[in-house]
């Protein structure tokens, strides 16, 4: 029962970095204090995924999450917006390789959606995760930038619902 207390002194939180790598790509990196097998489990077990994909600070309620997490499988996340509308995010898994790689499409915006790739690489008893988002073209990425889709989030998730409305418009 006291296990949680004992593991608490990790005041050195791992940092999330974001870098626009090329004109079509964005790269997010983060280190986790666990073997790749455990990080992979948290990504690919729907009950666990639901808990972290929608952080507590996010003002959106996740209504449902269905996922067939294997190469060729599909996923669908449905959120409640304002209690009046719903919004779905969906796509296919292009590749699911245990403990090392997950690749999926983001099809909610049609043909133009980005392809996301997560790779897990063990470094000692830690795992380096690299999330790579590749847009279909520079134009699509620029359009995403110009729409200001993520701008509000820098301040607070309180604005995220507006952002999502913008995205769906």
């Amino acid at each position: 029962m006291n296990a949680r207390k004992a593991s608490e002194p990790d005041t050195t939180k791992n940092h999330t970095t974001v870098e626009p790598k090329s004109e079509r790509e964005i790269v997010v990196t983060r280190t986790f204090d666990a073997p790749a097998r455990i990080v992979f489990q948290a990504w690919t077990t729907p009950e666990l995924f639901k808990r972290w994909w929608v952080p507590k600070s996010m003002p959106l309620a996740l209504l449902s999450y269905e996922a067939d997490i294997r190469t060729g499988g599909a996923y669908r996340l449905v959120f409640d917006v304002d209690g009046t509308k719903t919004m779905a995010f969906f796509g296919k898994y292009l590749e699911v390789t245990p403990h090392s790689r997950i690749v999926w499409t983001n099809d909610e915006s049609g043909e133009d959606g980005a392809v996301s790739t997560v790779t897990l690489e063990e470094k000692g008893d830690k795992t380096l995760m690299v999330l790579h988002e590749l847009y279909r073209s520079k134009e699509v990425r620029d359009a995403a930038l110009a729409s200001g889709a993520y701008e509000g989030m820098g301040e607070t998730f309180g604005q995220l619902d507006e952002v999502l409305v913008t995205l769906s418009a």
Partner: protein
Amino acid sequence: MVHHSGARLDASFAALSDATRRGVLERLGRADASITELAEKFHMTLTGMKKHVGVLERAGLVATEKVGRVRTCKLGPSRLEHETAWIEGYRQLWSARFDELDEIIAELKRKEQVNERKKS
């Protein structure tokens, strides 16, 4: 307009693709600085720093002004409002997600340890 904004974004992204240049922007976000100060801070030659500042200046991210023999740099007209607001929003989303993921991972590790103990 659209074309113009796209070209500006290209220039901004090219400018932001370098760690030193991102560092320079971070530094200028706190206070204006001369090229000499920036060169010292980033352990670079004056010529090297001038090149970096030039790239940032062309992207509109930095503005420079020469007073006497000193060229002072400050954040430029387009500042980072658009680009960093976007990147920062994106980073916050992932950062919040991964902080929660840390908790779940810690839980899974504890469970494994308990199971290991049961087995032995």
